[in-house]
């Protein structure tokens, strides 16, 4: 057994990706932000882009992601990451520029920026963590909160009369001609996590090939503000979120298939 082998003979089967900094994160136990960080970092490592990647962190629980990735990083104002990424990318076209945004950031306060980045076909990538709630500020309703979902600002459950309907961002952005690669994945089990990783890698390749705008939406958990255990939260994603936010490829232009 591996465990009994002398250290020199041991084979590394799992280790921290280079693109991930060797520090503790502040994420709550069971939060899938940690998983998506790892997937992004693995993709960067595998594409060998560590020295050329730039993350535009956003305002939300991932606000400190600039600390967690061992790559160049900046921090945008709430919702403005796609605009900041645009600025960066226009003057550094051979760099990998991506945003890492929550649903409040991307689908509420920053809707204009994300839509126009996609419409311009800006060759940047958005990693969009959709956990159907505002995590950072303590569990308010998000644009992606489900009808009936109780949050601290929809205490009686999200009423579509008062708060309208959740936004399916992948579907919205897929309508725009500047979008090259728009997919939705989930982080609730191993199979989906593997698929998510592949999608992130593809999105980065799309960007580096200059094909246009790319976004990977990741259905994610917030056990803390959902008031659930980590495993119940994963079940909730599978049973409640996935039916509302179907997983799949919403826009994949032909050139992507040739990559």
């Amino acid at each position, binding site marked *: 057994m591996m465990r009994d082998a002398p250290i020199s003979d041991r084979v590394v089967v799992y280790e921290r990706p280079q693109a991930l900094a060797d520090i503790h994160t*502040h994420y*709550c136990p069971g939060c899938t932000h940690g998983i998506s960080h790892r997937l992004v970092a693995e993709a960067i490592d595998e594409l060998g882009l560590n020295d050329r990647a730039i993350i535009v962190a956003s305002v939300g629980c991932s606000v400190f992601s600039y600390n967690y990735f061992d790559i160049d990083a900046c921090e945008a104002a709430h919702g403005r990451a796609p605009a900041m990424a645009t600025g960066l990318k226009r003057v550094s076209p051979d760099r990998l520029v991506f945003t890492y945004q929550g649903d409040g950031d991307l689908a509420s306060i920053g809707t204009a920026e994300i839509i126009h980045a996609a419409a311009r076909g800006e060759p940047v990538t958005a990693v969009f963590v959709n956990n159907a709630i505002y995590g*950072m500020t303590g569990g308010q309703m998000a644009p992606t909160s489900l009808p009936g979902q109780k949050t601290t600002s929809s205490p009686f459950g999200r009423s579509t009369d008062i708060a309208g309907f959740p936004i399916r961002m992948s579907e919205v952005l897929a309508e725009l001609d500047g979008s090259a690669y728009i997919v939705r994945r989930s982080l609730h089990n191993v199979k989906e996590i593997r698929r998510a990783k592949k999608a992130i890698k593809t999105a980065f390749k799309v960007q580096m090939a200059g094909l246009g705008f790319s976004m990977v939406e990741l259905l994610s958990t917030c056990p*803390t503000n959902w008031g659930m255990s980590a495993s119940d939260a994963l079940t909730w994603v599978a049973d409640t979120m996935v039916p509302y936010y179907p997983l799949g490829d919403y826009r994949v232009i032909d050139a992507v298939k040739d990559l």
Partner: protein
Amino acid sequence: MQHELIFSGFGGQGVMFAGQLLAYAAMDTGYHVTWIPSYGPEMRGGTAHCTVVISDKPIGSPVVRRPQIAIVFNKPSFDKYEPLVRPGGLLVINSSLVDDPVTRERLDVLRIPATQMAEQVGTPRLTNVVLLGALLAERPILPVNALCDALDAHIPAHRRNLLPQNIEAVRRGAAYAGDFETMGIP
């Protein structure tokens, strides 16, 4: 008369509610009172603390650098507040989680295995009220009864069924401190 207290512990140990409960009891007894929390991301898993000032006059500063009384629920809080309590002040220590020696002189110290006692009553979540009971037996800032009345009046509706347990926890905390030969009871 003015009392300045700091409650400190892990987020989730009921530190904030302990301070609020004392504040409610002080208000109901007719005193001026302020309660301020530490707030924000540091509460996620880290330590949380709140400051309570009770006075018979309108209160100026709600912030205090050196409290007269610190109630420490865990070791990081002990490390932070042991040096800060004012000379002649009181340090109430949850000895279930803190066994460090107190190095300061001219400090009254009350060690109480509050978490164990809370578990005996039913759940470690009662640690905060055990400590409050002990505090008021040691320093009669307010009558212990005022605390029980405040519990009755302000316990969140979904915890109402736990009221008898809470009162029992206060009682045991008070009895423990009352039995304890400590210095400096006024």
